[in-house]
């Protein structure tokens, strides 16, 4: 797959800005290092030429920003958003849930061959990163202590990219480059591994993972499916409100309910795991639901189309019983 | 183990008075029937019902009252709603006093005083007014301008009519927002009334009420020639700890619960506009 360049995106933005198709651009702004890019809104091409970056660290899913961007009062015109294939699924899901006005967005699909996880780089090269050159497949990382190291991109991909489910863009106004295909990925392997464990092992596994949770809500706040006006965990009247997990029950409660609330709506974008400061594999909860939904009710990919009926707001008369669900051999 | 300010004292509600349709005044003492703690005019206390919540309220009774404390509370959130259905004998927890009082013994001493309040805004001023009335000879002339939506919404109406208005050197000016049957007093908004009354500037003014009233009353006083250094008010923000540590009630560098709630307008000018 040909790699899309920063210049190509700037050129595209310039065309669209100049022709008045869009009035502003959601993009990535360079940071202090080569890996800490920040989402930013650009309103003119000069600032883009100055600060806009695009590279292997632009993993953030921008579709949720459209909620805020399209609700801005007194702002005319469309906003340009660049969508990686995975982002397009979130984009559709948000549209399905009437979360933003499609008319106010100009979506440009961009090809993506996976984004890189800086934590994986650090795990290999250690601290003190001076520079990262991600212009080629082999990524060169220079550190204070160890000189330049060459890393294979495949080894340092974000988890979600290593298990990319689709390179196909399911929503866009315009596509740059060629579209990819839906991938028959191995994304459920980890889930299966857990399923094969004994209940005791699974319990120990999750206790270890969830006990690290600091309830910072980053997973929730970044999640494109979590778009409630007021989350039940912030609502004193919900009966489950809590700010800090008092014990393992509340840790479990938060993550079970959150996963349940996004079940059938989660596009498996992997943002929750990417942003978790404690590196809890939250995607394994969501993927469990996705896997179960696929095997219980037939394959369903949230966000594949706009307006599809989520599995939890649907049924057939022949659905399996809960008792069968927990006793299935192939679950 | 030493004293912990977060741990409250136990209080008992010994009287509940329905002041206006949505304001009740609660009289609170210790289980032994004594006053819970001493306070200064303008200070606040945290009342709480375990399981419901804790909230900050002005102590509306005067420090000179040695028997009990009173809190005038408007029904708006969950703690206040709960309190409004409480009956005499109900226990509550009380923490305080919090914050800085009005400078009644230095700055105010010997001066003419003007109190301007709107609606439930009278509650924080009542303790100061009664304190100054108690030590009547320490202060000059006292003017009280108080307004509310209607006659029924005037807090402490009986006390105002029967006690305040009858004190010598105390002038009470009441107003309500709209004409009402059975009301032959002034009608109109507080800021306008203050301007109409046209006070001389040789006095200290204290304002309390809804933000919009404060804004226009201050403008009115300024047009009458008052300096901001002569005008005080009290602020209200979300509070939790009441001791300047939990981090939420600050305006700039000042914590309302600790450095306030009493501020002079020139002090407020130094603070960012985030209250």
């Amino acid at each position, binding site marked *: 797959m040909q790699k899309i360049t920063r210049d190509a995106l700037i050129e595209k933005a310039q065309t669209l800005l100049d022709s008045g198709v869009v009035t502003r651009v959601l993009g990535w702004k360079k940071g202090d290092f080569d890996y800490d890019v920040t989402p930013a809104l650009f309103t003119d091409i000069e600032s883009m030429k100055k600060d806009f970056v695009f590279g292997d660290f632009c993993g953030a899913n921008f579709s949720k920003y459209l909620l805020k961007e399209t609700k801005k*009062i007194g702002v005319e015109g469309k906003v340009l958003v660049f969508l990686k294939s995975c982002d397009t699924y979130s984009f559709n899901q948000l549209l399905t*849930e009437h979360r933003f006005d499609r008319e106010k967005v100009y979506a440009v699909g961009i090809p993506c061959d996976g984004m890189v996880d800086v934590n994986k780089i650090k795990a290999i090269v250690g601290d003190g990163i001076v520079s990262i050159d991600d212009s080629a497949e082999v990524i060169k990382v220079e550190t204070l202590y160890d000189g330049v190291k060459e890393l294979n991109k495949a080894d340092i991909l974000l988890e979600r990219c290593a298990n990319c489910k689709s390179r196909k863009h399911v929503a866009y106004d315009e596509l740059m480059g060629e579209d990819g295909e839906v991938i028959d990925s191995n994304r459920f392997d980890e889930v299966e591994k857990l399923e094969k464990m004994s209940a005791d092992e699974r319990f120990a596994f999750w206790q270890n993972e969830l006990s690290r949770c600091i309830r910072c809500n980053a997973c929730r706040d970044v999640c494109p499916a979590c*778009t409630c*006006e007021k989350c*039940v965990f912030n*609502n004193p009247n919900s009966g489950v409100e809590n700010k800090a997990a008092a014990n393992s029950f509340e840790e479990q409660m938060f993550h079970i309910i959150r996963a349940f609330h996004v079940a059938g709506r989660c596009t498996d974008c992997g943002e929750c795991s990417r942003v978790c400061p404690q590196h809890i594999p939250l995607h394994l909860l969501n993927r469990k639901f996705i896997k179960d939904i696929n095997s219980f009710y037939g394959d369903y990919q949230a966000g594949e189309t706009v307006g599809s009926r989520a599995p939890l707001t649907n049924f057939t008369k022949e659905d399996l019983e809960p008792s069968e669900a927990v006793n299935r051999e192939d679950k | 183990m030493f004293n912990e300010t977060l741990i409250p004292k136990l209080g008992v509600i010994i009287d509940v008075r329905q002041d206006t349709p949505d304001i009740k005044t609660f009289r609170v003492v210790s289980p032994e029937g004594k006053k819970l703690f001493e306070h200064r005019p303008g200070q606040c206390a945290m009342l709480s019902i375990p399981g419901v919540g804790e909230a900050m309220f002005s102590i509306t009774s005067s420090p000179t009252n040695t028997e009990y404390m009173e809190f005038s509370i408007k029904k708006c959130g969950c703690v206040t709603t709960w309190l409004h259905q409480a*009956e005499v004998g109900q226990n509550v927890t009380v923490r305080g006093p919090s914050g800085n009082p009005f400078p009644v013994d230095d700055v105010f001493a010997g001066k003419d005083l003007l109190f301007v309040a709107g609606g439930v805004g009278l509650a924080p001023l009542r303790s100061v007014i009664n304190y100054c009335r108690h030590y009547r000879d320490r202060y000059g002339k006292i003017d009280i301008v108080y307004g509310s939506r209607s006659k029924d919404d005037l807090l402490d109406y009986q006390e105002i009519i029967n006690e305040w208005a009858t004190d010598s050197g105390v002038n009470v000016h009441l107003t309500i927002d709209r004409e009402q049957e059975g009301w032959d007093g002034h009608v109109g908004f507080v800021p306008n009334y203050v301007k109409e009354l046209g006070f001389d500037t040789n006095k200290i003014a204290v304002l309390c009420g809804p933000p919009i009233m404060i804004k226009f009353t201050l403008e009115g006083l300024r047009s009458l020639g008052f300096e901001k250094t002569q005008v005080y008010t009290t602020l209200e923000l979300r509070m939790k700890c009441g001791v300047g540590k939990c981090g939420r009630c600050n305006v700039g560098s000042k914590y309302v619960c600790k450095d306030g709630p009493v501020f002079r307008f020139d002090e407020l000018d130094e603070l960012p506009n985030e209250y």
Partner: protein
Amino acid sequence: MQRIGVFVCWCGSNIAGTVDVVKVAEALKNEPGVVHSANYQYMCSQAGQELIKQAIKEHNLTGIVVCSCSPRMHEQTFRKTAAAAGLNPYMVEIANIREQCSWIHKDMAEGTEKAIVLGRTAIAKVNLNAPLTPGESPVTKRALVIGGGIAGIQTALDIADAGFEVDIVEKKPTIGGKMAQIDKTFPTLDCAACILTPKMVDVAQHEKIKIYSYSEVVDVKGFVGNFDVTIKRKARYVKEDVCTGCGLCTEKCPMKKVPNDFNLGMDNKRAIYIPFAQAVPKVATIDADYCNMLKNGKCGVCAKVCTANAIDYTQKDEFVEEKYGAIVAATGFNPISMDKFDEYAYSQSKDVITSLEFERLMNAAGPTAGKLLRPSDGKHPHTLVFVQCVGSRCASCAEKGKEYCSKICCMYTAKHAMLTRDKYPDTDVYVFYIDVRTPGKQFDEFYRRAVEEYGVHYIKGMVGKVSPEGEKLIVQGSDLIANKQLKIEADLVVLAAAIEPDKSARPLATMLTASMDTNDFFTEAHPKLRPVESPTAGVFLSGACQGPKDFPETVSQAGAAASKVIGLLSKDKLTGNPCVAHSDEMMCNGCSSCEKVCPYGAITYADKEFRGPNRTTLIRRVAQVNEAICQGCGCCTVACPSGAMDLKGFASKQIMAEVDAICK
């Protein structure tokens, strides 16, 4: 804080036998909010109720817990008691300490302990109860019947006879439906037209009934008691109120080759036509697809011959908006298309016909004037083969046909066979069947007469293939009883095509938010207990749109639907169930999850303005529950992730308080 009164009932010894009621009353006294606790032998008795009323007044109670029998037994009783004492009836909760406690436990200590927990649970709930008032909505005292077949006709007549106005919307130029096409009816063999046409006339003459023929429902808004319906009156190019139905135009029209759909295309009509002699309304209609005047602007014969000046070539579709309190779906059925059943050579030979076509062939007003003649050559057929279950009971061939039994085919095939043999004794009649199903009054007797008296050859087995050979149709089939393959040289093959809901039902169901099953039959509100109601309040089902039916069944269901409509329209106001869903608009984000799971279509969305930060206004899409439609199942409350949707009377907080009280 509530002021709760607790009343523990002995129920004689039913409860007091295994529950220490005094101890229960004593224990519950200390629960939060309880200000009064009493026990009495029979709380439901006059004296017991009086006790409650007195306590309400004396202790100024705001809530009541009765520890007694099941709420299914006396909840209403105690609600009324509370109401009589001025307390909102929904401030009453029942702790079921009889059916779910004293009757199942033998040990006094155990029973008492559980009764206390159950009482505590009810108290915990009442503490969070809020007074509820059922919503009221007015009722438009007029009904709409969609479909003018026998089902629609019967429903309309019954409603109109009760004194309410009824409109019938029929998409064809005349009412009458399938029954008008049928020759005789089983098992009595009386003439369909003879029993139908008087009813059609009744409809036409009824002052309470208005017929919108050649019309369709295109939009439905509103809810039970208050539907707003838009009806499209298709242009028929004839002024309905002027046309006398003399029929002169239909004779003079030069366009003679218009397939006659009333006779299923087996003969022709003119471009201007009256479907059949007894049509109601008896008004001509121009088929715009064939009329030369409308197509090319040349002709105008009908206008010239019409003495009443009823022809109007400039007519346009009209849209009428009407208000109704109730809607009856009576959209009926159609035989399925035979396209996918080519093994029976339907498309290859004119002499392979469906049973409905056979009806027309046998009908005196049909294309052959009632003479049984082969469509291909007009010759008299000698060997007839009837094939049963064509497209019915297709469990394994669902892509071709239907999985269900079409129910009526066994009987009408017996009728056809019998009538054929009766009129034409020179015929050989064979019937291939899988089973013969005759559960109905006089049904089996009828079938046996066909076999025994009329000598119809019933063959248990399937027809594998029909192939035209010269003038003959070679029918290959198997006889399962004789266990042999058969080959019959037939002159006419009649296929008992499965019946399916009319195609108009699906879009109509969407408009009505009425649910359908996978076969597009309307779903009933309850299959056993509410068979003529749709789950959508105010929408009723009449006839075959709900499932395959014969005439008597259709007519009785039509009457039942009418009685439900009459029951609804006789009310001036509808009082709802106050335990309905409610959406907190401040929390709703308009995701539509709730709407998707609502079985009643009670949830709609509106764009509402909200105050944003810094004096801005935000517009948000929020869910709104129509309390008149909501039945209070609470499905939406769980579909809603934010908890914006809650159920009054069974609020999340209340249920959680119950959970807490039980687990305490």
